[in-house]
């Protein structure tokens, strides 16, 4: 199973409610994935600034002096906000790569959830409503976001096995389905220089798209390539700094429903995830076609 929700806002007036709308959608999808949940929220980028979201099993010890320690290591101003097991560090955009490297020495056991100008990723084991509450997702604003409720198949129920997976700056991917050739694709991507945190199949799909983008492909082209190179069942929703995309495998047995109004584009594994969105009764509602790439960018 697994449940996916996504929202891409066209109307800036809805931006303060993005977290609340996504939380409601995510909780509705609990039946499809009660073992862990995660959310990627894209805020409006601030010029010259970037964000690093990190996770730790020992947040008290790891986060107490992290902003100062990181600031010294990268010789730049770093501020941080702790949310439960996660911490969002804001820093100069040109020091983002340096900060990622510095984290490995400063806090070797902490994990980088996401890095970029707009993205923040929060994910943990537990019921979607509890995960959303721990990170106060409903109070977050943003331009677009993706959420996932997981029923694990291909790898263990752990924080790092939860979705979304982020394998490039401001990129993330969530997945409903399972891939059968992820080990061989992972080997090829490792040889090409990509790094992996888990044995999870979805992380391979995320890295596959990130690698294509690094090679210069456009988002649509990178997603199109999943149809030829990835074997298995999938509905993917991909987030980037500017938008999000959807693609389903040619068999398309993993469900997907989309809705569009003048105010937003929404994605749900089931229609019921979207029933509380404003104006849903007059939205254009449809199922994305198999083996067809859809994406929206601002």
């Amino acid at each position, binding site marked *: 199973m697994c449940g996916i929700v996504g929202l891409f806002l066209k109307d800036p007036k809805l931006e303060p409610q993005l977290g609340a709308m996504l939380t409601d959608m995510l909780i509705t999808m609990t039946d499809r994935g009660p073992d862990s949940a995660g959310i990627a929220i894209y805020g409006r980028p601030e010029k010259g600034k970037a964000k690093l979201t990190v996770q730790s099993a020992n947040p008290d010890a790891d986060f107490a002096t992290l902003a100062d320690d990181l600031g010294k290591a990268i010789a730049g101003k770093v501020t941080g906000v702790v949310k439960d097991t996660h911490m969002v560090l804001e820093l100069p955009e040109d020091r983002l790569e340096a900060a990622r490297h510095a984290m490995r020495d400063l806090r070797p056991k902490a994990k980088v959830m996401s890095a970029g100008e707009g993205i923040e990723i929060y994910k943990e084991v537990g019921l979607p409503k509890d995960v959303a509450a721990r990170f106060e997702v409903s109070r977050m604003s943003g331009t677009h976001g993706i959420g996932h409720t997981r029923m694990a198949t291909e790898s263990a129920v752990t924080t790092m096995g939860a979705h979304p997976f982020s394998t490039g700056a401001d990129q993330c991917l969530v997945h409903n389905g399972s891939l059968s050739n992820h080990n061989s694709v992972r080997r090829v991507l490792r040889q090409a220089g990509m790094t992996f945190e888990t044995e999870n199949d979805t992380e391979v799909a995320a890295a596959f798209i990130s690698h294509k983008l690094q090679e210069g492909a456009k988002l649509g082209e990178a997603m199109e390539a999943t149809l030829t190179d990835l074997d298995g069942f999938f509905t993917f929703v991909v987030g980037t700094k500017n938008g999000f995309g959807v693609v389903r495998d040619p068999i*398309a047995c993993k469900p997907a429903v989309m809705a569009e109004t003048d105010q937003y584009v929404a994605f749900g594994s089931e229609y019921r995830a979207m029933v509380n969105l404003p104006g849903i009764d007059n939205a254009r*509602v449809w199922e994305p076609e198999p083996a067809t790439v859809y994406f929206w960018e601002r």
Partner: protein
Amino acid sequence: MQTFDLAAQGLRALNSTLHGLKGQTNQTAWEIINPKGAHAIAVGLDAPVDVTVRGSTGYYCAGMNKQATVRVKGSAGPGVAENMMSGTVIIDGDASQYAGATGRGGLLVIKGNASSRCGISMKGIDIVVHGSIGHMSAFMAQSGNMVVLGDAGEALGDSLYEARLFVRGSVKSLGADCIEKEMRPEHLALLADLLKRGEADHLAKPEEFKRYGSARKLYTFNIDNASSY
């Protein structure tokens, strides 16, 4: 008219109330409000009642239906009218995957489009789709009739047995052992009746359709058993 508010009263109460209607009942007209895409709405009915759902439904709406008429004033999720035995199910909007799967009888009408695997393994149900159907529709369809006013997706009627398929628009590709067959007078008469019962006789004429069926090469067709299909 009995009105049931699904959001307030809950799914289990709805279905046990509807299951309580056996044989002759005076409560023959039901309206379900606030379905909000919930699963398993009006599943397993077995009485000659008329149920109208005001909105869109989730998985398996009107599954295993017997006798009842179920109308959905919205779209239906996966598996609508799955394994229907008799009665009528009418969807005003679109239907998701495997609509009417394994249906043994009755009539399923979809006024919008149906997605993949419509009528998979159908065993006697009649399905009328005003729009188009997705890939792998009528896969292993055994008997019954499928009428499509629009187009059909890839691999129509793959591994087909004795179901009859009528498509007015284009067929992207035919599945293994599915072929076009001649339209004889009895097929035109059958189509005229199905279009009328499927509330589509004002939209299309029988002569506009092509008929598809099994080449009978993939399974062991025996003429002596023809009457049992």
